[in-house]
């Protein structure tokens, strides 16, 4: 049996886990090729026009696998952190793929993984159901999950050391670190797909900065910083973005010079948590510069470069002058 995993959305987070899990169960795994123009185009054609860009990209990848595999592997990752959710679009993703491409009912593996209320039990039961699609043997599934979690831990540790998913998945050589750093905020599916983000990591690197992403900040530090908020949001990845930003809010690390927040246009969670980050950054008298870049399928590379260059100039200037308090506008 050939199982296809579309390269999009949570793939960048759970690549090692899903792949090891499926392979341990004796399944042939096919991952769609890295994003390219044709894939994006298919996503745009089949997607609902108002849905966010990453989902369109995902649909393009799912389309690229149709006909080449027996079944698509799109587990419904409702929640992978206790008490939190993923975005509604990820919750409805398998249904969207099924209905937009007119697929048969069992052409998509869509069992639910939900840690929201039941924590690790929800996780385990979710993967048990996923595994039952391939084998009756529960012990085999448990063993596969154990090995998959091992691979996941290794993968996450590598990411923590500064590798990017693309370095690990496609074997691209990593960039050597630079002294000055920028905190690059954003959903992993935007930061990790260098085709759709127009290679922003490389662009920032060429301007003289390495980047720090949420993956490189220890989870305890993110969660501790998040407690600044009276109520954290209910989206896990958005919380990680806010937590990462808050972890660097105090100017403790002199090598960190600014925040770049990559947002996809029409991203629901980021439209709110981006505002939270921006307001907290501005409330600090001596905070780091913050740049929000919105991208979607219409974004031009030249505009992105211009804005990044201007931002780098500003970071340099601010770093020299230490003046960074921007008062909020008065009431209407």
């Amino acid at each position: 049996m050939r199982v296809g995993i579309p390269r999009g959305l949570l793939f960048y987070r759970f690549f090692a886990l899903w792949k090891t899990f499926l392979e341990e169960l004796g399944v042939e795994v096919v991952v769609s090729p890295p994003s390219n123009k044709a894939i994006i185009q298919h996503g745009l054609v089949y997607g609902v026009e108002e849905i966010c860009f990453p989902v369109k990209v995902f649909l393009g990848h799912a389309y690229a696998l149709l006909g080449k595999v027996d079944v698509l592997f799109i587990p419904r990752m409702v929640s992978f952190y206790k008490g939190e959710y993923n975005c509604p679009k990820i919750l409805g993703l398998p249904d969207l793929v099924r209905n937009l491409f007119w697929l048969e009912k069992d052409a998509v593996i869509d069992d639910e993984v939900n840690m929201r209320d039941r924590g690790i039990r929800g996780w385990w039961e979710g993967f048990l159901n996923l595994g039952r699609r391939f084998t009756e043997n529960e012990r085999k599934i448990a063993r596969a999950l154990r090995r998959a979690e091992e691979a996941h831990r290794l993968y996450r540790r590598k990411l923590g050391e500064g590798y990017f998913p693309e370095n690990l998945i496609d074997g691209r050589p990593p960039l050597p670190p630079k002294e000055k750093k920028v905190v690059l905020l954003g959903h992993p599916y935007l930061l990790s797909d260098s085709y759709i983000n127009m290679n922003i990591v490389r662009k920032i690197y060429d301007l003289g900065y390495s980047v720090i992403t949420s993956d490189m900040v220890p989870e305890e530090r993110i969660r501790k910083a998040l407690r600044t908020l009276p109520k954290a949001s209910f989206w896990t990845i958005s919380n990680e973005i806010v937590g990462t930003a808050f972890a660097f809010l105090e100017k403790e690390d002199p090598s960190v010079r600014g925040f770049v927040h990559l947002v996809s246009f029409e991203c629901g969670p980021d439209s709110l948590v981006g505002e939270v980050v921006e307001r907290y950054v501005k409330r600090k008298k001596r905070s780091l510069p913050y740049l929000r870049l919105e991208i979607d399928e219409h974004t031009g590379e030249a505009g992105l470069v211009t804005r990044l260059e201007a931002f780098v100039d500003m970071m340099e200037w601010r770093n020299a002058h230490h003046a960074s308090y921007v008062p909020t506008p008065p009431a209407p």
Partner: protein
Amino acid sequence: MRATFPHLLHLDIALGILYPTLGIEIVPPPPITQKTIEIGVKLAPQNACFPLKVTLGNFIEAIEQGADTIFMVGGVGPCRFGYYGQIQRLIIEDLGYKVRFVLLDHPRYGVRPFFEALKTMAGGRLSLPKIVQAVRLSWSVLRFTEELEGKRRALRCQVEDPKSLDRVIDGALEALRRVKSLEELEILKEQTAEKLSSLPRNGRTDFLRVGIVGEVYIAQETRVNFNVERLLGDLGVYVHNSVSTVEYILHTLRPFTRSKEKLEAWKLAQPYLKRFVGGEGIDSVGSAIRYAQEGFDGVVHLYPFTCMPEIVAKGILQAVSRDFDLPILHLAIDEHSGEAGLVTRVEAFVDVLERRKWEKKRRLEHDGALSRR
């Protein structure tokens, strides 16, 4: 304490009865106008959904009128609504207004803050019988406002003069504000029913039937959705709205309360959308399927632009539309929506529905049986 709250169609009537009974002075926000929307758009995050902007406008306008406390509810997601309060509080704080923001959030985010907020919203001292009485009356009033709106939708295509219908309903809504007890409410209900039944009818029976599905705020708040219901009614369409505040509140209090319609809609949606995706996503899908099964001619899907659950629903409604041969008009509303464009689209949609109905009838006469395609 001079408290205020956001608008949601006739919620202000119900709360206007609840709060004075509990001894809380309220400052209802002025009715939603272009200015409200402009204030909200200026202050809110650019890509936030439209209801956040409008309700923020409500708050600011109410503060300008002297409110010093804001009552807002929270939520647990995954839809953005549950986080509105947090963002609005930040914005109002940064603007420098000295107001108290009372946010009633799920006990999940702390049992003590929950009870404290509840206590504030109930007027400080919790005297249970008094609260129960006040809640019962305002709840009945809220239900009645929805009944009235339902009548307005259903009767608009059947009465001779829609203006007199509006007069009766708006009159009843005004009278509701002065209701003091359940007995008075009963009398008002009877009087209104009499008035409605005595309105002269135009005798039409072959009107088109259109159902409305969508997000709870946009699909109900006629002041921001350009009154699509009235527009359809004036074109001679019988309108039914599956969205209601009462249902919304009942759903929020689950698992204790869940109406039959809601459960049915969720079950109907199963083959297309397997689980709750936040907001009203699954209700939109299920209700559209129910309308198809009940023989409605079309469905209008109303939602704020970029609403996450409704966009999932939109993708899935395309499949519903295909499988049930049911035309669906998707209307995304935000501050950039123009009335002329919306009116044109609704008129064109009604034209399509009329044409389809006529074709079906003709085929029925010709073939003697209703073929599906």
